[in-house]
């Protein structure tokens, strides 16, 4: 199973858990290979070119298997070169804010953004649901300043699990 992401992210851990349980169902273990890079398009390319015997599969995602079509000139056909097996899980998003923001709920947040003389700063991952924060900007006639961040690094997974507070 190709995971087109770096080891240690939450999707990586999720893919490994599913692979382990699938291995039990199939009666043989599934070997994981992380093929990160170019937001997953290198790993998807490997799967698209693999021998079609069922021994190479991909734990894909909205980012790797759809959104990359908007960011890259791909060497494969996103729809034509990959055969669907099954959806696995939805990954909804949460709007997090620093605790010191005065707004108590979303309506107050929007009012706060509209009333502010300066822009609010919204962290943004490229290829990472640009839809949502973009829409928020639009609705508020752009009082939101996007702050580009690097893609999730394995250290973030540790942050998420609470195993460490900060990483460099």
């Amino acid at each position, binding site marked *: 199973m190709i995971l087109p992401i770096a080891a240690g992210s*939450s*999707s990586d851990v*999720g893919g490994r*858990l*599913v692979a382990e*349980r*699938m291995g039990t*169902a*199939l009666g043989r273990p599934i070997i994981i290979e992380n093929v990160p890079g170019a937001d997953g398009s290198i790993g998807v390319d490997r*799967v698209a070119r693999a*021998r*079609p*015997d*069922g021994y*190479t*599969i*991909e*734990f*894909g*995602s*909205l980012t790797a*298997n*759809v*959104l990359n*079509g908007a960011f890259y000139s791909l060497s494969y056909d*996103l*729809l034509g070169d*990959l*055969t*669907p*097996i*099954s*959806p*696995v*899980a*939805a*990954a*909804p*998003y*949460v*709007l*997090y*804010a*620093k*605790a010191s923001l005065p707004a108590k709920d*979303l*309506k107050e*947040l929007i009012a706060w953004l509209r009333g502010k003389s300066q822009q609010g*700063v*919204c*962290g943004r991952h490229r290829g990472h649901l*640009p*839809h*949502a924060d973009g829409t928020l900007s639009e609705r508020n006639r752009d009082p939101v300043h996007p702050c580009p961040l690097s893609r999730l690094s394995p250290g*973030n*997974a540790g942050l*998420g*699990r*609470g195993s460490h507070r900060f*990483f460099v």
Partner: protein
Amino acid sequence: MQDLAAGRIDFLFETAVQLPFTRSGNIKSYAVTSDARLMQAPDTPTFSEMGLPSFSYSGWTAMFAPKNVPKEIIDKLNAAVVEALADQGLRSRLADLGLEVYPRERQTPEALNAQRKAACRQMVADHQRASAAIP
């Protein structure tokens, strides 16, 4: 997320895997993009509840094979995914990672094909809307 905790940025869209951070007191959550509230954050409303239904939007994970894999092999792999996802222990561990397993009736190759095509259409529509918004 560390920039948010330190107050260098004001807010951030991230998956539910970061929810345990809200217990630290440095970070709070305003709303979730799922259709229903998350089990891990029962006090955080959905965007729909707050009057913004256009924010019902999630990333997803899915299983793919190369093209031209025979249908009987796809069916066998699909059956293995279905069996794995029926495991309550696995579902609960995935939920902790912010991954909400789709219901059994969605766990088909046809459903994934429809899902990725719908996502492609949405992407093109968003791109056109964003391009039109640039003066």
